[in-house]
């Protein structure tokens, strides 16, 4: 590669990458000052740009497992059979919650992967809280049940 071609390449890569990654992200998720969606491997590198005043967070709560009723319900991650603290599991719960549990296909995929092989009644709950206050023990500002579902023979 000639010296001049290499110089042109430098400009194309260093200018093109931010334009392409930002353009792709805006096209997928809309114009934002904290774009999070990406066209792999083009990423905007917007990480922790947005400081959450209030976090809307979805959790899956188990109300019944193999005949045993939980009152009050317990969070999925507190149940040894279902505990999965990977980012993949977290994202799956958030996606499920954002969709309001209405997408039966997505719900079936979630149930097969994270609740598989058990008779379970569960509900998706949306919690809203200020992260720092919540860390110091404050209860969620608001809690809302998004949907209640059953899987396995309990269905």
């Amino acid at each position, binding site marked *: 590669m000639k*010296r001049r071609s290499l110089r042109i390449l430098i400009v194309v890569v260093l200018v093109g990458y*931010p334009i392409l990654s930002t353009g792709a992200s805006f096209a997928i998720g809309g114009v934002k*000052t904290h774009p999070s969606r990406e066209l792999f491997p083009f*990423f905007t590198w917007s990480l922790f740009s947005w*400081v959450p005043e209030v976090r809307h967070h979805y959790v899956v709560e188990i109300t019944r497992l193999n005949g045993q009723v939980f009152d009050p319900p317990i969070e999925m991650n507190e149940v040894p059979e279902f505990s999965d603290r990977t980012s*993949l599991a*977290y994202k*799956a719960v958030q996606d499920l919650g954002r969709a309001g549990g209405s997408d039966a296909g997505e719900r079936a995929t979630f149930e097969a992967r994270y609740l598989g092989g058990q008779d379970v009644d569960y509900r998706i709950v949306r919690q809203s809280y200020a992260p720092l206050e*919540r860390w*110091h023990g404050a209860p969620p500002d608001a809690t809302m049940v998004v949907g209640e579902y059953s899987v396995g023979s309990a269905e």
Partner: protein
Amino acid sequence: MMRRLRLWLTGPDRSHSAIDADRHTAKVTKAWWSVRFFYAATFFFAYAEANVLWNLTNGGAPLQPRWVVAWMPDALTGGTIATTAYLVGASAGLIFMQHRWARILVCITLVQAAGFRYSFGGLNHGYHFWIWVSFCLCFLPDGNLSRLSQSYASRHRYLTAFWLAMALVAVFYSLSGFWKVAAGLEAMIAGNINSFSPTALATIVADKLQQSGDNTLLGPFLLDRPLLGWPAHLWVIYVELLAIVAVFRPSLHQTWGLMLIVFHIGTFLLMGIVFAKHVLLLTLLYLWSPFANPFDLRRVLAVLPLVGWPSRHRLGSSRGLEDSGA
């Protein structure tokens, strides 16, 4: 126009201009070893991660292929090919790194392996740096070290392609800093907590720890003293945003590499996030930068972007910023 922009970014650090033939060869030698280490590490990662990739084929999750692996019909076929190809590509890079075909093969198989890994619903950013650096290294001229040393043009092209990898990594960090500033300004105008708020870092850490349900070494300590995070967060924004300026100033390469590594150590201590490949690349590209001058605190302070001018003023003359080794 590009030359003017480059000079503006270079600022008072004129050390890059002092290149003589011997030092040029020394720089190529340093870059060559970093490239060699890169391909050895690629092979190591391919081997270490082969089992992780393979396990995705029988994890029960359906394949939701990213566009780069849209050709994969199912997890088993895709995983078999991606895992095997990654190992073959990384082995080729390890043995034939002096040949462009091997470096292109590494880049392609790396994209396929990462694309496959991210085709099960989730996506993180552990591979991106490595992929893009492997892309930049495709533009290195062919030849082993002794052949490169004999030709000025080859040496120059080698260093230019190596610098491109450094600059692209700097672009990633600067983008990260840019979005923190952009989102911070938007939130500030709206009257909300933002990147510049005294409790910004503590809020981010609290949010992350509650999402993951994890505990970290220093997270709880910071959350009990949230104001301690304020200078740290402002410092991170400065280091990230101005990484693209630092890459034009060889006197800052090692300092910036070290600061970014400290930043990554901080994200682990506070939030439990590990960017192992990033830290290794910062070592190869910045801490071991072939362009870096021997560390000189006075020079580093003088060429710091935005805040270096008081030091320059004290020096009294820009002559002090010329390359002392020239």
